[in-house]
């Protein structure tokens, strides 16, 4: 039974229809990462969940409580929803100590003082901030402030917490560490986490399940990290995660050939059954899935070669197309580095096939 349910949520800012019939379910005790480019509507969805925005249509359920229903005219005010939130800028109150910040949700519920003290100590231990109990936020670093925000969210609710881009404002090293800590925390407490981000890397590392939203606000794919990486459903998902190359296959005399603009080259790969009827097919290839092979009939010229340390990056022109190729140091050590201007043979490993985008088919 799904723990959090968004059913057919629609929301518009003036003329801008941000969400249209959006539906998503979260299971209890999972970390669900909602990823999408900036402006796709994910923050709006979160604000609807929290009661800070009011959808025009749809229903939102948490457990067996209906938080919002346009049909039944239910709209629980934000202060009664009991959902923990960690904002992007932490929103830790600068005039209150760490203890006062964390105790606030319970003060609002008129929990007795002794109980509050006990629970604050417990949660501080959980986020490893016990010695900062009487500090002011201005005395804490970004990462520490964020832990306070997390602790406060846990005080509001220990069964549902929303995190909206919580680590974007931290430096790279700290980001890694916080992702690990959030994961550990969730394992310890067992809470359900709804994590919103545009950072695909964070989503892949953190999520039990990952939901991908496109710029129009539609849910494109929902699955585990392996599903997203190894089995991207659409071209958008494939392109969203990391750098990509796209090639076109054109059907000529019943066979699919590689369309390089001015020339056609043989395509040794196996086109999946369901796409064989198409006149044009899109093929996605990751830069590190293209290798140099002297015997390959597909030829290209190296226009640019850049040394990036862990790999060499090449821009290779094949026909009218420019392909981006990454060669790892192991491979470079074995087959040698390729200089700018040289002619190379290209072999494509691990292609992903998609029906052609309508513009290209014309």
């Amino acid at each position: 039974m799904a723990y959090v349910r968004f059913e057919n949520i629609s929301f518009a800012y003036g003329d801008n229809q941000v969400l249209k019939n959006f539906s998503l379910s979260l299971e209890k005790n999972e970390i669900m990462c909602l990823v999408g480019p900036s402006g796709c509507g994910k923050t709006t969805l979160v604000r609807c969940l929290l009661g800070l925005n009011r959808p025009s249509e749809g229903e939102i359920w948490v457990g067996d409580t209906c938080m919002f229903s346009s049909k039944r005219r239910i709209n629980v005010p934000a202060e009664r929803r009991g959902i923990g939130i960690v904002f992007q800028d932490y929103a830790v109150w600068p005039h209150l100590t760490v203890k006062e910040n964390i105790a606030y949700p319970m003060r609002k519920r008129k929990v007795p003082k002794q109980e509050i003290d006990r629970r604050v100590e417990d949660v501080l231990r959980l986020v490893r901030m016990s010695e900062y109990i009487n500090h002011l936020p201005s005395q804490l670093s970004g990462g520490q402030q964020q832990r306070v925000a997390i602790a406060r969210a846990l005080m509001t609710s220990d069964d549902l917490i929303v995190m909206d881009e919580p680590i974007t404002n931290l430096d790279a090293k700290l980001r890694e560490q916080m992702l690990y800590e959030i994961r550990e925390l969730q394992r310890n407490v067992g809470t359900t986490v709804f994590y919103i981000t545009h950072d695909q890397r964070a989503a892949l590392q953190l999520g039990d399940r990952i939901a991908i939203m496109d710029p129009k606000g539609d849910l494109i794919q929902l699955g585990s990290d392996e599903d997203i990486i190894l089995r991207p459903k659409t071209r958008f998902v494939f392109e969203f995660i990391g750098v990509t190359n796209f090639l076109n296959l054109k059907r000529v005399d019943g066979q699919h050939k590689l369309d390089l603009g001015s020339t056609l080259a043989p395509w040794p790969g196996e086109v999946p059954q369901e796409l064989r009827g198409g006149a044009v097919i899109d093929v996605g290839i990751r830069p590190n899935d293209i290798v140099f092979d002297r015997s390959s009939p597909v030829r290209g010229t190296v226009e640019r070669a850049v040394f990036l340390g862990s790999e060499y990056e090449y821009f290779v022109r094949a026909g009218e197309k420019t392909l981006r190729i990454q060669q790892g140091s192991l491979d470079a050590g074995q087959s040698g580095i390729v200089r700018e201007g040289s002619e190379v043979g290209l072999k494509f490993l691990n292609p992903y096939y998609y029906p052609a985008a309508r513009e290209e088919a014309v």
Partner: protein
Amino acid sequence: MAEVQVELRHVTKKFTTKTLGDIVAVDDFNFQVYEGECFSILGPSGCGKTTCLRMIAGFEDLSEGEILLSGRPVSSSRANLYVPPEERDLGMVFQAFAVWPHMNVFENVAFPLRIRKVNKAEVERRVKQALQHTSLTGLENVYPSDLSGGQQQRIALARAIVTNPKVMLLDEPLSNLDPHLRETMRFELKELQRKLGFTIIFVTHDQSEAMALSDRMLVADMGRIMQIDTPENLYNRPINRFVHSFLGESTFLRVVIRDGQVYAAGDLEHPLGVTPPPNAAPEMILATRPNAIDITGSTGYQTRIETRIFLTDRTEYLIPVGDQKVKVQTPHRIAFSEGNSCWIRFVDPMWYPVEDTDEEKERARRQLI
């Protein structure tokens, strides 16, 4: 043999600070930059790179040593010589571009020529040429505040090349640009250098930027030069642990060497199958990189995949070796699952002595400045 364009001879710079006492910001820097080279000075904050650049530009005077431009001394402690920046005939692009907001694009770029009293027609011609080189044609009458960060940097670049300097100094040239723009500018900068033939000295803390742009690099730490070489040599044959870990990701494995065999600390029964270096100590650090480790074969050290994380462009595995964990990166298509067994083979590693940690403390002290 290419001409030496910039030379530093035993250059030292000392500062007296109020809070941290005496600091030697630059300690005996000796190096030469050749005509037409793209030379970078790379290191963490506090390593002396900015001070070094400012001494070459003339904004700081050195405490000891000599700086020569095209063979002519411009700073010398011996001869008590100090040529001010306006007489050094250099081009410079600052980190925040330093484009003048009260002048339009044309006036910004024309400024160095007007100072030199170049006649009006010539100014017009050379400015237009500089704008063409930096893809700013048509924007002459626009004011910098109406342009993007990338365009503002081009104004700074155009202004720096308009006097045809022999040497261009760049202070963190790409760090204020967003990642996509960084790549474009990197390419355009190299093209510009190729076309106009000037020498570039630039300073950065971003090792990937340095490696992508430089012909040769100087890696500095705590005011001292660690190593000067090409990016490939620095990356593949770093002289010490600092340089190794500063450039790219590093994996350091504690190993025990016995009877000509190398064992990972914590497992003295199964050798790693790698050749020990000559004159090996009984305990050493085996240094390699996550993508220089082969797990697709069946030789080496047998172990299993403990954790798998998908990154956007590669898969990362955490693999136990002895009592340590080693990080390995492969393309996505090399798909192991957690729990799978595998053989790990270290390809051509570097070897370092087991290190002391006083250096860490000094490094931390410098970060405060």
